[in-house]
């Protein structure tokens, strides 16, 4: 029964994609008058580019549907999901247990977790910075304010200028948890809105250092990073895929299991090879080619079944 429903959903979506506008409008009209309501997505600033590309392509394939993508930070997106003001939340960190409980309570059904891509969190410096590698311990010391001058790391004699995200950001949470080991950032970290702003700041600041999703890292240099006692590894598709790059993470979509079909259809579509190709184009790493393949498949499977419930 469940399987049949999943299959029929898939077939229907494929049929719609193939047939184009007329049928879509017709089925939209018959399904429910609300089905041409825009699909709203909100959350992670890291995922805004990805969400928008996916939305554009999806709208191209399904004329008549409107998908709106907004940033604001993972925390903001999850809060909106809990409050019921968006259809899908984008998050660059997994939802916490109590957030899932709250959301399940307010939305009246479990929350489906859908990993859509892999991201490498890059630590980057100005292109003229002579340093090419840092250890995770050094990065921790830098962002906690224990190392204050590039000289101490073998660089030029200049104060290290720190750039980071505000606390609503999933990137901030991930960095604090995995690099600072839940310690505090130095007060001197300048908090900027969005990874793009950090890239811009580091790009103009010879002694700057910042962190953010690899997809944004243009005109700055991502550092190769080594975990304790291991050779430094630069972020790339191969190193993220085989898990040797220490700072890689999953990017998620979240929606309630009882979401209307227009939501689940979009969510499922993001896992198709076609959508995953977009993931690569934007600069992230698709789930299908990764070493975490099996893991992903099971997560997707549970997601699918709970959708069909």
């Amino acid at each position, binding site marked *: 029964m469940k399987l049949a429903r999943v299959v029929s959903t898939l077939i229907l979506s494929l049929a719609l994609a193939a047939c184009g506008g007329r049928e879509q409008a017709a089925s939209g009209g018959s399904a429910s008058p609300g089905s041409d309501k825009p699909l709203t997505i909100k959350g992670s600033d890291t995922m805004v580019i990805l969400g928008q590309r996916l939305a554009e392509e999806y709208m191209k394939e399904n004329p008549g549907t409107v998908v709106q993508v907004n940033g*604001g*930070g993972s*925390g*903001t997106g999850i*809060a909106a999901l809990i409050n019921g003001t968006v259809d899908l939340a984008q998050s660059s960190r997994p939802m916490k247990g109590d957030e899932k409980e709250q959301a399940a309570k307010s939305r009246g059904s479990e929350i489906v977790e859908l990993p859509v891509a892999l991201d490498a969190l890059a630590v980057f410096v100005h292109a003229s910075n002579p340093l090419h590698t840092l250890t995770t311990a050094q990065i921790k010391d830098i962002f906690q*304010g224990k190392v204050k001058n590039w000289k101490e790391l073998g660089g030029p004699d*200049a*104060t290290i*200028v*720190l750039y980071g995200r*505000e*606390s*609503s950001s999933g990137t901030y949470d991930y960095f604090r948890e995995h690099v600072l080991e*839940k310690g*505090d*950032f130095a*007060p*001197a*970290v*300048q*908090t*900027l*809105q969005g990874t793009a702003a950090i890239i811009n*700041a580091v790009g*103009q*600041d010879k*002694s700057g250092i910042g962190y953010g999703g690899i997809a944004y890292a243009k005109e700055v240099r991502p550092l190769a990073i080594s975990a304790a006692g291991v050779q430094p590894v630069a972020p790339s598709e191969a190193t993220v895929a085989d898990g040797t790059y220490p700072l890689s993470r999953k990017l998620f979509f979240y929606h309630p299991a009882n979401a209307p079909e227009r939501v689940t259809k979009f969510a499922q579509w993001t896992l198709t090879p076609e959508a995953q190709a977009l993931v690569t184009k934007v600069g992230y790493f698709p789930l299908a080619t990764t070493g975490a393949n099996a893991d992903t498949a099971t997560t997707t499977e549970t997601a699918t079944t709970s959708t069909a419930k």
Partner: protein
Amino acid sequence: MNRRHDEVFFRRAGRRLRFDALMTGAFSVAGWVAILFIFLIFLFTFKETIPIFTDAEVQHEANLGKFFAEKQEGPTLMDRYVWQPTSEKPKVSLWPIILGTLKATVVGLLFACPVGVAAALFSSEFAPPRLREVIKPAIELLAGIPSVVMGFFALIVLATWLQQTFGFTYRLNAVNAGLALGFALVPIVYTISEDGLAAVPRSYREASYALGATKFQTAWSVVLPAAAPAVFASFVLAFGRAIGETMILLMAGGNAAITSFSLLDPLRTLSATIAAEMGEVVVGSAHYSALFFMGTLLFVITFVSNTAGQWIIRRMQKRMQGAAA
């Protein structure tokens, strides 16, 4: 015949009086509504602050002692007074943020007050009338530039220029943020000062010239002191705007809550903190109440400064009138 005439007259007068009463009523309602709104906003802000004083759970993380007296261990000032409400162990000292607000405001006023008053003196006393017709609307137009545009300009252009010219360590610092804020304050200082200067009676200037004073002496020692209440009022208004300004400082200040007196360090203001953190805060939490406490603090600062300003202005006016009489 005569009586009929009277009847018409009274009927008309009655209608006119009724209309009069109606309009007076409408205008008073509008006036009261405006006051009511301000009062309600204050009430709401204050209501959300109350848990700081009453709720034990909130007080555990945020209370007046923690805001103003709590000190961490550390070698420097910035390690001792810390604003980190989302940390594993929340730290909510307000000093870095109050200091940031003051630094930006002081730099902004130090830039805007002299420039604004000088520009006002120039356009009211020295500029040929035709030039004045250009300067006045142009500066007033500056007031219409959205602060987000001003902030963007400071973030991209001004910060880079300042760093390249003076070799600052931090691109975004109190000087950069204060200057950008100053640009937004100049029109306020200018407009009100200019109106005050233009309102100084011609007889003052003529008397001064008759005594052999030069144009500059007249402007500086006669006209400017005569317009002092207006000039001072412009400073008070500019201060109020500076304390509350958000977007410029959010963009150009670097947003690091550092306890430091240096103008070359990045800063974070009360308003920018509210703007940056209100989006993700859990409603009803200690962090939430702390942000509203900042809002109340801003409210109180503006209220007190405006009231004090009004009082001083009235005293100055009284003295001026006394001197004139």
